[in-house]
């Protein structure tokens, strides 16, 4: 499909947090406007829009676009659980690479504060949702399987939260950006499910994010080297692997093959860490380490901001928050800022190749509804010296 080089020419996000008094559309207008300004485009320049949202009301995509001069643009709404925004980016990339459209807007949007009083209520039409499988429980089951298989102590999970929340403290748009907790505070926080304590679970957040995808042109564009999209196969008693691992592995292998890169070539990663165990399993599936070694990466500093392969410099879902549909494009925005060298205090030195991964699930017996892994390359010109990503594009 990839006939021409495709890039991300602009990104934007809202702040992330609880905004129950705001219209959900207003969050997206902030993100889209920033992305359009960043790309230097006018509404008439956009050929199509892919909008990811899980719980957004019917018509949300059109209401969002109509508010920012984009009524009449062909609009596709995508639901792929936690990967909704990333699938929107993937579809935008595929549409541009194939020549179907020239300049495409990918948008992710979610307002959880007006949908749920507490955690996400499991889906009653799903066999496991009906049986009480709240998302923290799904991940807790994987965590206990992992701890049992590799004889890992639970505090190894907590190191992921300490790392990501330290990063999030440097992100002014993050939902949780206060003083990062210590390892003891993470472990001593309220038990939620299995070994997962409250501070090992992402907050319920509102937010939106957007990216403009177009043929590679500008000196600030971040190139999409590859993007792979996998929907999970059956996950049942023949699977020894934790849930979702196979899908992430398949997507990663395809993305690396298409880009001609290996895990060791990646300088910065934004991956799905809705729960601490998620980051560990994801990094193993991506191939950043051998199976069973994922739990050591945060604890040893390998994936910290100053380490050799920083993971989730934004603070990840654990700090930025997890407005489901928006998450993939919020991850994308962070990688674009990192690869442009404008990520401020949380800038990863020498970041030139970035990896994006989001996996979402919720259908019983399926190894993840959707997983996208994409590899991004920063501008080849000298990175901009600016220290703040909020400033106007040059």
């Amino acid at each position, binding site marked *: 499909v990839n006939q021409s080089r495709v890039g991300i020419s602009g990104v934007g996000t809202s702040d992330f947090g609880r905004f129950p008094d705001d219209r959900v559309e207003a969050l997206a207008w902030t993100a889209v406007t920033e992305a359009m300004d960043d790309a230097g485009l006018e509404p008439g320049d956009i050929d199509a829009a892919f909008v990811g949202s899980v719980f957004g009301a019917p018509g949300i995509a059109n209401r969002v676009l109509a508010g920012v001069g984009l009524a009449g643009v062909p609009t596709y709404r995508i639901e792929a659980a936690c990967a909704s925004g990333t699938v929107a980016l993937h579809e935008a990339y595929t549409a541009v690479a194939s020549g179907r459209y020239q300049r495409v807007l990918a948008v992710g949007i979610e307002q959880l504060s007006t949908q749920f009083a507490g955690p996400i209520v499991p889906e*009653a039409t799903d*066999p496991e949702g009906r*049986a*009480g499988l709240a998302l923290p429980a799904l991940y807790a089951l994987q*965590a*206990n399987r992992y701890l049992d298989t590799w004889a890992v102590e639970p505090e190894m999970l907590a190191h992921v939260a300490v790392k990501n929340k330290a990063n999030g403290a440097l992100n002014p748009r993050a939902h949780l950006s206060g003083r990062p907790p210590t390892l003891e505070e993470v472990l001593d926080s309220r038990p939620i*499910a*299995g070994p997962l304590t409250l501070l090992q679970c992402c907050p319920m957040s509102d937010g939106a994010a957007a990216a403009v995808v177009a043929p590679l042109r500008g000196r600030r564009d971040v190139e999409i080297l590859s993007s792979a999209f996998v929907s999970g196969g059956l996950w*049942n008693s023949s699977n020894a692997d934790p849930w979702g691992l196979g899908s992430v592995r398949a997507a990663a292998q395809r993305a690396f093959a298409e880009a001609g890169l290996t895990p060791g070539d990646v300088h910065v990663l934004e991956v799905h860490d809705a729960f601490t165990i998620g980051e560990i399993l994801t990094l193993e599936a991506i191939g950043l380490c051998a199976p069973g070694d994922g739990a050591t990466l945060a604890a040893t500093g390998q994936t910290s901001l100053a380490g050799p392969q920083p993971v989730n410099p934004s603070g990840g879902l654990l700090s930025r928050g997890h407005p489901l549909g928006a998450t993939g494009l919020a991850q994308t925005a962070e990688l674009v800022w990192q690869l442009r060298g404008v990520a401020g205090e949380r800038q990863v030195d020498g970041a030139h190749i970035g990896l994006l991964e989001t996996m979402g699930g919720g259908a019983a017996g399926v190894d993840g509804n959707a997983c996208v892994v994409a590899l991004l390359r920063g501008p080849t010109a000298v990175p901009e010296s600016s220290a703040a990503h909020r400033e106007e594009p040059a």
Partner: protein
Amino acid sequence: VAETIEVSDPRPMVSELQVLGSICENCGQTSAWRRPRCERCLGGTAPTRFGPGGIVWSSATVHLRVGHRPPPFTLAYVDLDGGPRVLARLQPDVELACGIRVQIVGTDEGDVVVSPFQDDEASL
């Protein structure tokens, strides 16, 4: 589960401490439901029953209220002997190591309930 919405119950059905499932006559894939065709190969299936025995794939105690289940309650993925993996309530509410033998002991408001395996003959 939202109090105001009624949907057809998608959970596995249990009768006489066994899950009413099916097995593919073509590839042998098992299912915890009576499905007309195989979920793997679309082959024809035969109705069969699984359980009561199985082993814990993983278990976790949940400290959140989920639907009618007050916290804490414990969930387990159980690989039924020769059969499918089902999500069950584990009673008592104590996490078990992976690989521990359990058996279906009944249902609780539609949830499959398992408990650690009791060897009745040995206890006689």
